[in-house]
């Protein structure tokens, strides 16, 4: 169990980094990486939501979706509804978390700000939940995978935003300015992370 968790941790953070080798969550990766401070805010929100979403979705999968029911003499398995149910549940969960945070922890709510509702539609969150189902992980392993994937996302986002802050001061040829040089940088960063492949 312990070694399994360690494998998941290193695998999710470095080897199969969500952004740089699975290409999930590219939108916030390019969108909120202009400044280190916003990148940190987004990272915090993603770690928070992905942990919670992985836990809840794996519970739902284990106790409802993967079970077989007998209705009117027909055996029914609702596994095919997985993606649909996960989307709805994650969206609702984020809404709920937002409402509760606003009431009980205004400072945290302020810190996460606009990033919390933005994550509702982040494919990385759904990706983590779907990959957990695919790999057949249990509830605890799924939660660990969710957290570690989010940490991997945060690592990529913070690295990339630091690079972009430096890029702002560099002289970039006119045709490559802005998003173009951002994408090239992201590509090089992804190649750097390829060095971790084979570690797990």
């Amino acid at each position, binding site marked *: 169990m312990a070694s399994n968790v360690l494998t998941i941790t290193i695998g999710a953070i470095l080897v199969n980094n969500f952004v740089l080798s699975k290409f999930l969550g590219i939108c916030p990766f390019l969108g909120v990486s202009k400044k280190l401070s916003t990148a940190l805010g987004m990272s915090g929100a993603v770690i928070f939501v992905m942990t919670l979403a992985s836990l809840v979705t794996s519970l739902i999968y284990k106790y409802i979706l993967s079970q077989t029911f007998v209705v009117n003499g027909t055996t029914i398995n609702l596994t095919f509804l997985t993606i*649909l*149910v996960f989307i*709805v549940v994650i969206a609702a969960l984020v809404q709920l978390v937002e409402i*509760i945070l606003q009431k009980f922890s205004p400072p945290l709510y302020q810190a996460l700000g606009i990033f919390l509702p933005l994550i509702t539609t982040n494919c990385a969150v759904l990706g983590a939940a779907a990959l957990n189902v695919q790999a057949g992980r249990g509830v605890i392993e799924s939660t660990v995978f969710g957290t570690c994937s989010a940490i991997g996302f945060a690592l990529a986002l913070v690295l990339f935003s630091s690079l972009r802050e430096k890029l702002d*001061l560099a002289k970039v040829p006119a045709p490559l300015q802005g998003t173009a040089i951002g994408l090239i940088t992201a590509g090089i960063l992804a190649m750097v992370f390829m060095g971790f492949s084979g570690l797990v």
Partner: protein
Amino acid sequence: MTIILTSILFAAGLGVLLAVIIGAAAKAFAVESDPRIETVTDMLPGANCGGCGYAGCADFAKAIVEGRADPSLCPVAPPESAGRIAEYLGITTQEKEKVIAVVRCAGDCAATVRSPYNGVGDCRSAALVAGGGKGCDYGCIGFASCARACPFDAIEMRDGLAVVHPELCVGCGKCVETCPKNLIILAPAAVDVHVYCNSPEKGALKRKVCKTACIACRKCVKAADSEEQMTIKGFLVETNYSSPPLPDLVEKAACPTTALRLATKHAAGAYEGVSK
């Protein structure tokens, strides 16, 4: 058939269940906020420039409603707007004079360059390297740090000189902080006559590097209606903003270096640059 029905019912049931939970949570954990804050936010310009010292218009509105700030602190809104907010909240507000930014330099690029500078295109970086590339140590460096800081696009870069457009400037003071040469001041908007020079050096030295430097010849001091209207500080003349001269002084004084200018005509490009 049963499978289709069951999955439809399951999905619909899930949707209704989640909707009920969220609805109940929104009611149970509702955060009460003062509705006046929103109204006051709507009455503010919504520029979020931070000129009032608060983090955006909504934060400022909160401070007004809580009595921590005065509505007239907003540099963007006209005085009537502050009056309307005060009337809505039933409080009193002070009248505040409108100010605009003035870049006290008229030395544009070509004639004044001392050495080329190839570093980061930012005034604060350039100022670290021997005070920038221009011949005058006190003038505009011309890398547009102030223009980039301006939330209202009121500063134009013209031949490497920052020029404020008085009709666009709201006097928020964002540019003042960015200038490493402390060139930019906030002057009363009602005053149009300014001395576009900031160099405290001797007249002859200034003229060597810049044709539009103020050489303190006192022509404007003599031409003014009263001598108080222009004050002399060392080798530099300044407009006395507490008893300002009338706009016709510029014509009467006929400043030999055209350092004495009207802000409106300076922005319109009526004066010749040093390079011309």
